[in-house]
């Protein structure tokens, strides 16, 4: 007698609504964009553009997949687009938010200086290496997540991370040495 295998019951995954995605990912996207080279004064507009795309494409999103890589991928493309448009201008580090989490003025100044140093060093990296470094070492994403966000082979991403780390280290040290002279 032939046995009919019953279809396994998959848990029904609900599609996240836009507002929850926005609230959960806003700060991540904000910092990612800033670290990918979007100027401080353009952050509002660029973040707006990212979430506009998210809002429009939410119906195409596979709810069984994690949201963060998907949103980060959109942010990466918007930031790349923004950089292409602004290629003719020299990137200048803008004002940095004054709010430092529970810290005194000395600590705040130190953090601001470190932020400036990091952003300055990041500008010296090619966009592809910068993206992997930012997502992995600053935003704390895993490599599979980055692979999903950037749609690139894992080995390529590791290679970019290695090169990016080396260039970033050199750039930070060079910058610090210049400041200490």
């Amino acid at each position: 007698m032939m046995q009919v295998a019953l279809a396994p019951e998959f848990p029904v995954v609900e599609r996240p609504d836009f507002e929850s995605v926005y609230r959960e990912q806003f700060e991540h996207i904000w910092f990612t964009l800033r670290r990918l080279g979007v100027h401080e004064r353009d952050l509002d507009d660029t973040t707006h553009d990212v979430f506009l795309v998210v809002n429009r494409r939410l119906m195409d999103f596979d709810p069984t997949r994690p949201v963060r890589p998907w949103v980060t991928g959109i942010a990466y493309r918007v930031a790349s687009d923004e950089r292409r448009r602004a290629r003719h201008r020299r990137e200048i580090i803008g004002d940095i938010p004054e709010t430092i989490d529970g810290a005194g003025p000395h600590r705040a100044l130190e953090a601001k200086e470190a932020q400036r140093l990091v952003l300055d060093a990041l500008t010296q990296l090619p966009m592809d290496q910068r993206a992997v470094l930012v997502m992995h070492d600053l935003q704390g994403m895993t490599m599979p997540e980055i692979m999903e966000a950037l749609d690139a082979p894992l080995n390529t991403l590791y290679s970019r991370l290695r090169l990016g780390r080396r260039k970033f280290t050199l750039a930070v040290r060079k910058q610090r040495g210049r400041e200490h002279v």
Partner: protein
Amino acid sequence: MNRQEIPELPDDILEVLACAKSVGGPSSDTQDAIFARVKQSAAAPMLEVASAAEIATPKSPIKPVILLSAAVLVAAATAVLSTQHPYDNDIPQETTKTVTEYQAQPSAEIPIGADAEDFETQDEADSRKTLVLPVTPRQLATGVERNARRELATDAPTTTLLPSEQSLLRRARRQFLAQNYLTALSTLRRHRLLYRNGVLAEERDALSIRALAKRGSTERARKLGQTFLQRYPGSIHIPVIQNAIR
């Protein structure tokens, strides 16, 4: 290349990174303001971003629907080009001759408007209009001919030379994002001339203030910003404008 072969960042760099990460993020006001802007833009498609950035998935081959549409368009265009226009047989020989004469004559002698009506019947005037349309823009580039073209454009109810309110604002926004503030201001000025009290007047004014501020006309931006705050007290653009004119 695998994970084990990649050297970790040195300790001094990790310290810098940890310190840089302690810088706070945007305020909740900013978050709310951007959220409101996104919702508004999503409701009004003219503010959407049309760019390569939108493509969040790998490139897909051309959709069959597009190919089918293109084939239908090509077939239709071929059919139209190979068919004689029905009005071609109705054109009186005399009128055709008149057009030839028009092209040979100096432009100032072409009768238009009220003068033309003195010489022609209504049918002849209609034929003249039908015949003048195919004349290339170069032939209509100067003087009285340009006026004639304007007159024809006014007469034709289906012809419009004005860009829509949405397209003007969309263009201005693209120019603003590309940091062409002067061009954006020019486009916004055009919008104001054409649609002074349009439905997107609030967006136009907000963008104008931001473009002025970015361009360095701080005083003017501040003055207009104050007016904006009085005129639109509940506007969602207020935080952005306050930030721009600060």
